[in-house]
């Protein structure tokens, strides 16, 4: 290992190679802190060529490596291989080209999601995928996870907005995947790579599409006495042929938490629904009236239309703060991410409520109602013996409900290290074997982000367990999202 570390120093310089235990601490986990492992070394390259050389050195030494963006992932996708190399891409953070006439921006992987929009906003454009962590998450991580966001119902995911990437393969060779032009011939490798959670290559350059800002945006906050009534409103909107930009739902506990944290002034009811429409003004005006009618018919007890940008921001602040806000109502919580067919939402939410009653753990629901993506937040207190384990079991049981309803074990957080053992609930041995074949075709040495996505015997350092506070958190330097 020392020989490899020396080689990395030669490639990237002394200041870009970390192997002191204190320096490695910050890289032990991503935003899923109960999974942690200590790498032997962290290297911070500043160019594609350095990434290539680092990967070649790892491949030659047979040492596993894990690419890392800004560490905001929620599935342990950037969890280091114990004793391996972390290739942190934070210093590859340049905006390389802004091409407004062709509506595209070329960036390095360490650029944050929101930075793309900041760069093109003066021209009237934006980058559509908007994960809640968009202020801090990196575009490289977005490519790895195929990130979506509240507005993916209408605008799709990262995979719909990337034209081309430069990627370093697990043997160090640099390839261009996708094309600056439409319709590159052959299998859609770009579509395979996006969402492959860093297991097939390390992306060093990304060309994304940008969109023109819609002419009009209208946001509605509707309150309901029951979740069933809120669900009926969502069904009514979809069956009226309307595809809103976003449809978000929060239950009583989530409303309470958001209120305590950021005071969005949501009504104190059982359920709130946030519906946002965007597009040409005439269309938004016409469909917004239809949405209001649907909500009233479904039994909305109050309707608030955001008349100003300030009001709209306040509503979204309440929604986007919901995860972090749980800290206000519970000492600890576990964020789950699962998907059900939208029509199965009432049934699955009923099962989650029954599970909460049975286990005594409170569960808040904040979710993308338009596409059936649930984010149950399971509240527990780690000081009470057994509760952390119970919370993990409850989270796993919710995934069973999602799979039984015909859904998925993850809608946007990824499988990573966290959910790989749930993959057999959704996929057969044969399904997984073919995915492994694809992986082996690209990474025959199995060095590129090993131990993620596909179930395998656990390695030491990967044992799941109750949440343990990150040293950064303990020192009061950061908090959980």
């Amino acid at each position, binding site marked *: 290992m020392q020989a490899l570390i020396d080689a990395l120093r030669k490639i990237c310089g002394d200041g870009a190679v970390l192997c002191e235990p204190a320096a490695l601490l910050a890289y032990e986990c991503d935003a899923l802190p109960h999974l942690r492992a200590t790498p032997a070394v962290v290297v911070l390259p500043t160019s594609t060529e350095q990434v290539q050389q680092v990967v070649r050195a790892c491949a030659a030494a047979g040492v596993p490596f894990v690419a890392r963006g800004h560490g905001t992932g929620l599935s342990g996708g950037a969890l280091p291989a114990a004793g391996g190399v972390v290739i942190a891409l934070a210093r590859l953070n340049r905006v390389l080209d802004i091409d407004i006439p*062709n509506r595209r921006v070329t960036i390095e992987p360490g650029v944050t999601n929101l930075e793309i929009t900041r760069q093109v906003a003066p021209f009237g454009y934006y980058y559509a995928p908007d994960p809640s962590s968009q202020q801090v998450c990196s575009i490289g991580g977005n490519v790895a996870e195929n990130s979506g966001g509240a507005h993916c119902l209408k605008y799709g995911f990262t995979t719909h907005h990337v034209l081309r990437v430069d990627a370093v393969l697990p043997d160090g060779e640099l390839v261009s995947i996708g094309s600056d032009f439409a319709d590159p011939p052959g299998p859609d490798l770009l579509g395979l790579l996006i969402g492959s959670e860093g297991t097939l290559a390390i992306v060093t350059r990304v060309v994304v599409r940008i969109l023109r800002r819609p002419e009009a945006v209208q946001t509605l906050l509707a309150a309901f006495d029951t979740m069933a009534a809120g669900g009926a409103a969502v069904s009514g909107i979809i069956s009226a042929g309307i595809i809103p930009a976003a449809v978000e739902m929060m239950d009583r506990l989530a409303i309470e938490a958001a209120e305590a944290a950021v005071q969005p002034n949501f009504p104190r009811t059982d359920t709130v629904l946030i519906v946002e429409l965007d597009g040409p003004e005439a269309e938004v005006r016409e469909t917004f009236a239809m949405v209001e009618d649907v909500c009233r018919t479904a039994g909305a007890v109050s309707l608030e239309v955001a008349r100003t940008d300030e009001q709209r921001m306040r509503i979204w602040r309440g929604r986007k703060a919901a995860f972090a806000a749980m800290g206000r109502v519970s000492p600890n919580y576990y964020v789950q991410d699962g998907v059900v067919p939208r029509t199965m939402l009432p049934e699955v939410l009923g099962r989650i409520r029954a599970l909460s009653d049975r286990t005594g753990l409170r569960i808040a629901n904040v979710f993308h109602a338009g596409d059936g993506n649930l984010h149950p937040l399971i509240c527990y207190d780690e000081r009470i013996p057994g509760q952390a384990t119970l919370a993990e079991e409850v989270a796993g049981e919710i995934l069973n409900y999602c799979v039984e309803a015909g859904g998925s074990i993850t809608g946007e957080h990824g499988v990573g290290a966290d959910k790989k053992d749930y993959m057999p609930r959704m996929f057969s041995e044969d399904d997984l074997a073919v995915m492994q074949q*694809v992986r082996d075709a690209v990474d025959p040495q199995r060095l590129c982000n090993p131990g993620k996505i596909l179930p395998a015997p656990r390695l030491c350092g990967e044992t799941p367990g109750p949440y343990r506070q990150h040293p950064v958190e303990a020192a009061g330097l950061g908090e959980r999202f």
Partner: protein
Amino acid sequence: MAAGSATAEIVTPADGPQLAAALHAAATERKATVISGGGTKIDWGRTASRIDLVIRTSKLTHVTHRFGDLTATIGAGATLLDVNRELAQHGQWLPIDSAFDGATIGGIIATNDAGPLRHFFGTARDRVLGVTLAMTDGRLVKAGGTVVKNVAGYDLGRLVSGSFGTLAAIESATFKVAPLPAVSGSVRIRFVSREALHQRAQALAESPLELMAFDVHAAFTRDEAVYHLLVRVASTPVATATQLEAARAMTGTDADVLCDGEEAELWRNQVRDPWTGTGAVVRLSWRPADLSSVLALLQDMQHRVEVPIVMTGRIGTGAGTVRIDGAAPAQVAAIQQLRSASLLGNVVVLRADPVVKDTIDVWGPMGSSARVMDAIKRKLDPAGILNAGRGPI
């Protein structure tokens, strides 16, 4: 049908397990195998030297429409026309174009064939949520799922998109479908100047209008070049009327506004025009801002090779289809000129006389990622039976 198929054995599996078994048997016996849906694009790609087996998907026509979830799982052999008839019963559709009545879902995914609707809806690969695939080792596997949001596992639906049946046989796919728009209308305007067309197109692109389709049609002969700009708007009644009026005002007072049957015919012709006659048909792409230069290039090409040329294309994405009439040597010269133009990328010959296909590689340069494609191909089809050497890998 490609050359060499006259003596090929034909099997028509009734379900997924039969499809997988047929593939496995073919791999064991090392039979050069072609998977065929409606056969509407079977002559795309290179000329096969030998085809031992044709597997037809015509019995895989099941459709499960979950209209409340806006999804549908569709057998590879179902035709797009039949699928859309079925989805329309619940006011929905799969918004994909095809120039061919018999085009099947499997063939559309395998070729990633697309038309004007891609401006708003993307191509087939953008709407595939999950797939069931038959592998050459006899496995029948799935990837993705039936929900509109899902990031579990590798997206093999994307991997087989554009693969031309070189990696696996598609048994079925689940799509995100869309509500049928309440009202639709289109505007068509004729130009004699490509610069004028480009200017109007840029103004439209910069406008707040949300267009469902945004196309160009260009026809070049020795005597003239005629250009049309085509715009489609489809939404709620007032919104459609308002946007149509805005589009008409921006394109000029002599614009035709078309609705109902006339509109349907406009777009049908736009999709089918490159495929009429017998000329070579080439797919090509450009950077959207280069539209005017690309039209100039095509006109220049017409002057050099002196055969009629028709081009239809998507203005927003910079993707088009060109038909080059005339004799084979002129077609070859024209295609070589397209390939050498830095303005253009991904110039792929779809339909052409075998003489043309034997003279130039239909796929063109595959770029640096070809080695990844080849590695995956070797893993999934180690006997190399699939697609009989016609495909891109």
